């Protein structure tokens, strides 16, 4: 089984926009991969004139919000850094028992990378950062600049959503069969740039699939060839 990877267009967002942007992207992806019985729910973004669709699953919403919170907290610790969040779909396969391992393995069949470039410092920042820029009383020109920037972000976000739809439409063969009673495929949300290695956060991680995912992909290909 191939693992299809989709790198979404990079978005330049401000700190307070992270949550809405990520919610929009992640829920849109999951909605296209929640092939079980759902009642779609329209959600209007507050910061942008965009409506996206959710599955209406409370647990899913909760889990996505948790991951977004983790992402935001990391961004606060590492300001002005390009960040990435990965949504992966996998199948659980029971691994052939061997003397190496007896665990089940996950076969990732699709990965989505949302790339964000957070430009503004958060209000609550760590003491390390000395690049805080606090806008107290923006003038009229600042407001115009802000609104134009907001429009650009909205247009970019719309492009990202179209990109998701296009990708979903073009690649359907790799999607596993739908299981009875299952609403959405197993998934995980990770932040590969910040994957812990040897107990430390890895900064400036390469923009590629994580090593773990790559390993799985490789093994999957070997099995197919075998």
């Amino acid at each position, binding site marked *: 089984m191939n693992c299809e990877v989709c790198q979404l267009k990079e978005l330049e967002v401000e700190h307070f926009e992270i949550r809405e942007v990520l919610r929009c992207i992640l829920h*849109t992806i999951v*909605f*296209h991969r929640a*092939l*079980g*019985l*759902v*009642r*779609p729910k*329209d959600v209007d973004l507050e910061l942008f*004139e*965009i*409506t*996206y*669709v959710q599955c*209406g699953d409370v647990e899913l919403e909760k889990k996505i919000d948790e991951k977004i919170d983790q992402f935001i907290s990391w961004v606060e610790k590492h300001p002005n850094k390009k960040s990435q969040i990965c949504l992966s779909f996998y199948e659980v396969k029971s691994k052939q028992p061997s003397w190496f391992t007896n665990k089940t393995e996950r076969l990732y069949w699709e990965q989505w990378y949302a790339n964000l470039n957070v430009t503004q410092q958060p209000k609550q920042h760590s003491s390390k950062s000395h690049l805080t820029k606090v806008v107290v009383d923006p003038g009229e020109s600042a407001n115009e600049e802000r609104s134009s920037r907001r429009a650009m972000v909205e247009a970019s976000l*719309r492009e990202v*959503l*179209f990109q*998701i*739809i296009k990708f*979903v*439409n*073009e690649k*359907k063969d790799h*999607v596993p*069969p*739908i299981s009875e009673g299952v609403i959405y495929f197993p998934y995980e949300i990770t932040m590969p740039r910040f994957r812990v290695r040897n107990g430390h956060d890895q900064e400036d991680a390469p923009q590629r699939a994580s090593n773990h995912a790559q390993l799985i992909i490789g093994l999957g290909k070997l099995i197919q060839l075998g």
Partner: protein
Amino acid sequence: MEMDRESGKLEQIVSQFRSKILHVILNSRVPSLHHHYQQQEPLSLSRVRKSDKWFNLVLGDRAAALENLNFSLRNLLDPMIIDIILVHHSSCSSSVDNLYTPSAAVGSPSDETVIERWVVQYDCARVNATPNGADTSSSYKKTYKKSIILLRSLFAQMRLLPAYRIFRQLSSLSQTYNFDLVYKVSSFSHPFSREEEGAMKEYIFVPVEAFPGRLCVSVTYRTSLSEFNLEPLVSLPSNIITDYVGSPTTDPIRSFPSSEKGFQATSFSIRGARPPSPSPFQRPHSWSSGFHKGLPLMQNQSLAGSPPAYRTSPKPYDVVSPQSDIYGNRIRNRLPTLQQATAYDEYQLSPPFSASASPSPPAYLSGANPVVAHHCSETAPVTIPFPLTGRNSFYLSLNSSDPSRHSLPPLSPRSSKHDASSQESPSGIRSYRKLEALRAGESPSGLSINYSAHKMVRDTKDDSGRFSGLLSSSGSPRIGFSRSSSRLSFQDDMDDCEFSCPFDVDDIDVSDSPASQNVEGKKALDFTAQSVPVGKKSQDAAVGMLVHMLRTAPPLRQDPSCYSTHSSKTVGYEGGVGTASGFFMPCKTADALEELKSYREMRDLLLSKSGTRVVRKEEM
């Protein structure tokens, strides 16, 4: 066999796919269907319909229109073309104006623009290689899975296209616009012009393999809709009426907002003249009925009154030009009150307000103005004159030149002490009676003479909004204004009034029982014994006396000479007396004899005093 079963499944998938897509598209583009969708109950998997389970996308009940469309497009090989059309109503007419001028709406110009065209087609032109048996069984499953994915992406994309924003605006219940979103479903379509094509873009969804053909979905949409300037019309408030003036049952003596508050209150011309364009529509009052009826005056007027939507042509009865930014002021613009009370069928909606800008004083404030100027008022108190011309007249007239007779109290169940023309009755006996015998010609329906009765003093309140308890404690007959509905009724407009004669009393009649009859009969005798000469009494008292006399008259004897009346017209009421007496329970013979004796005694007394003068009772 296996192939047939599989092909049947595929056909079913294709058919349901078309229905589902139609459902998704119309739910996301047609406001009325969207409202229908929004009213659905929350998702409960146990109660999901079969149609919702198709493609695992719960959309709720299908509107009847969709069912009909599905039926009409049964041929799966025909393309299903769904046009989403934006209809722009010109400034001369709007969807709301059509309520007032349906005839005008027929020929009203409107621009229609196809902003989206969805094409769903099962393409069998390309015949794929026949799959083997093993592949066939899984082919429909794959087709089904891919169809689900396609529907998901279509559902999401519908929210990203430019038409969605217009759809959301038009779906707003709090605003009305001069645009409408309609749809057209057919199996053929007129191609776009070159100009239209230049403004549109096409997106083709990746076809889904559905052996022997494939499912193709594409959309051609306008990339920009900014040229369509959606102007919100005045939004009707759903619940709050800021200048609510109360119902007719409330205190009529209340000051209406003055003009300095920016409030211009008028009423419509009852002569059929059109209201000025600045007053676009009527505020829906709680008591008004048929709000959208009878307003041909509103032709060419936008309900909203927004500046571009209507013309502000000056008219002689213009009061105030509207303010487009304040909803309240706009709806308060009215015509000044007019002087004549005529039929107001068409204008039964707007209550009169204090026409501070009008030259004439408000009718309800003028006790000297007997004519009700605002016949379409439903809250303003009306002073109804009671010009009993002469002692014989029971005819009630609203039009009288004698103001002094018209200073009747305002029509309120509470304001029963304001009657300047009231005369104290010596007896203080009060009773309510339904006296059709006293009907003098055609009287304004809705009016009734209520004779206060000692037993009915407690009935000062009336839930029905009538003023049967209006009459003061003076005991003299008053003209009560009784209305079954919350509209004023006048002598010229009796369409809906339930009273047919002025003496109709409200549903309060406690003197039906024989016991009450006897008691009242005795009291009437007492009254007559103490009666003063007729000529010295007021007409009110005279009528009261007459009623008492008639009431206490023995039913068995139809001889009018037994009754003491105060008017020569009572002769003409003999039949009526008889009829009236029919309303009374028959007295006992003993009572009648006693009464006869008393009459004889009185006659003898009078004869003795006057000598040769003979007073005939029937002449009085």
